[in-house]
């Protein structure tokens, strides 16, 4: 070997996240274990954090008493109806904004104005408009999912490859065919990414929607536990919402894998 020769040092690599599902579970387990140990040893006072095993017990009592589904089913139906309404109106309006300059010019400022409004603040108004029953709850969730869906949809339409649209025109495709076969599928990745955010917001708003006039519902359950400072029940409710969030997110992941299998 030439003594002037040195091996070139490796300096690439990294910045390429790989799927390692088990790490997530380990982090969860370590945190829960620490909380359990801390509360048992007295290092963490029961006022600060409930013991995880107590939360599990509360949860199993909730399940055994049959109250779990009494709370879960109304919440799920509010979530589904509200989000379905908000998302479908959002996608339609977003598409119109992406396709017609006049609609866009008219609605962009309006959307910008209503996006930052905390929808929770409007709940009393919705109660008057849509009634104290399910109507106001649907409206709150629909309104909250509408704005992020609109923004995601019209930006996604903007990002559709213009050369594909010109190609469609060059083959004499009708306007409707171009929208249906080129614009909509091309905007789908952006729309689905927006859906992730909208549905997470829908879950957040579920609790807010059940602040007024709800006897049953996960949100009502959490709020009641909070006002009684019943930490075990509060956390049991929060865990249900988290699980709901994870389920929704993995459902969208599954849809993406099916609908967007053409992507690399």
């Amino acid at each position, binding site marked *: 070997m030439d003594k002037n020769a040195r091996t070139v040092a490796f300096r690439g690599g990294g910045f390429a996240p790989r799927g390692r599902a088990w790490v997530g579970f380990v982090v969860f387990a370590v945190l829960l274990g620490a909380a359990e140990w801390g509360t048992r040893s007295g290092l963490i006072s029961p006022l600060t954090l409930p013991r995880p095993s107590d939360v599990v017990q509360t949860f199993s009592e909730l399940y055994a008493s049959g109250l779990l589904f009494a709370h879960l089913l109304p919440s799920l139906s509010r979530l589904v109806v509200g989000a379905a309404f908000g998302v479908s109106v959002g996608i339609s309006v977003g598409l119109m904004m992406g396709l017609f300059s006049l609609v866009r010019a008219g609605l962009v400022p309006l959307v910008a104005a209503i996006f930052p409004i905390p929808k929770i603040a409007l709940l009393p108004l919705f109660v008057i408009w849509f009634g104290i029953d399910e109507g106001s709850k649907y409206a709150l969730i629909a309104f909250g999912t509408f704005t992020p869906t609109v923004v995601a949809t019209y930006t996604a339409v903007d990002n559709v490859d213009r*050369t594909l649209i010109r*190609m469609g025109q060059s083959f*004499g495709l009708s306007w409707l065919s171009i929208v249906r*076969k*080129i614009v909509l599928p091309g905007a789908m990745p952006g729309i689905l990414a927006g859906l992730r955010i909208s549905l997470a917001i829908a879950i957040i708003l579920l609790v807010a929607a059940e602040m007024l006039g709800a006897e049953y519902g996960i949100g009502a359950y959490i709020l009641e536990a909070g006002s009684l400072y019943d930490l075990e029940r509060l956390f049991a409710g929060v865990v249900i919402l988290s699980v709901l969030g994870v389920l929704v997110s993995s459902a969208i992941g599954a849809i993406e894998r099916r609908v967007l299998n*053409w*992507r690399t």
Partner: protein
Amino acid sequence: MELRVDRVSHSYDGRKVLNEVTLDVPEGQIVCIVGPSGCGKSTLLRLMGGLEEPASGQVQQVGEAPAGCLNPLTYIFQDFALLPWRTVAGNVALALEDHALGRMEMRARIDGVLARTRLQEFGKALPRQLSGGMKQRVAIARALAVDPAVLLMDEPLSALDSQTRELLMDDLITLWTKTPFTAVYVTHNLAEAVRLGHRVVVLSRRPGEVREIVTLDQPLGQRSYGDTDLERTQKHLWGLMRDEAMAADAELVSG
């Protein structure tokens, strides 16, 4: 069907890109348009197929399109313009779906063009699984599926490496020899122009004007890689373009 460009001028934001261009595309011939970069050759092609409107002058179709023709002026794009979410067969079908064809005729047209472009086995593949050369063959198949009267090709081989380009040129020559088609072929590559063109139109630097129209008599099937006659024509074309190309290269893009 013939295509006739009559004193066409065009400008973008007050900048003239084409000036009084007049040329004919006779039936059954391939007309190549070459010129330095930014001379407006792609603009000219978009004007010829109605994707843009000329500021003055006109583009005319002369005669009727052949029977069975669904889209008389059909483009082949440089970047293929395939829908990534559709299979090879689906991309070809896109051009046919807006026409009231029966299921049988649709199937027959798709199978026919996939066979002509040697893609029969890849009907179910998605564009991301294909090489650049195969993608462009899919685009050629899609264009042939509508039985075009005139094919408008915008640098169809420029996105491909030089070996694939040779293979595709052979494919195009084979296709033309079997059934002669009418085509306008825009390129900046003179070797492609002398291999495929019955006529080569040389445009000047911006604003593009026709500098010379060179006619090549040698039949397409007899032209091959490294042919001396073609080399001579290519040198002549380069002689015409060299100074213009240098001047165009030295220009500021938006100056």
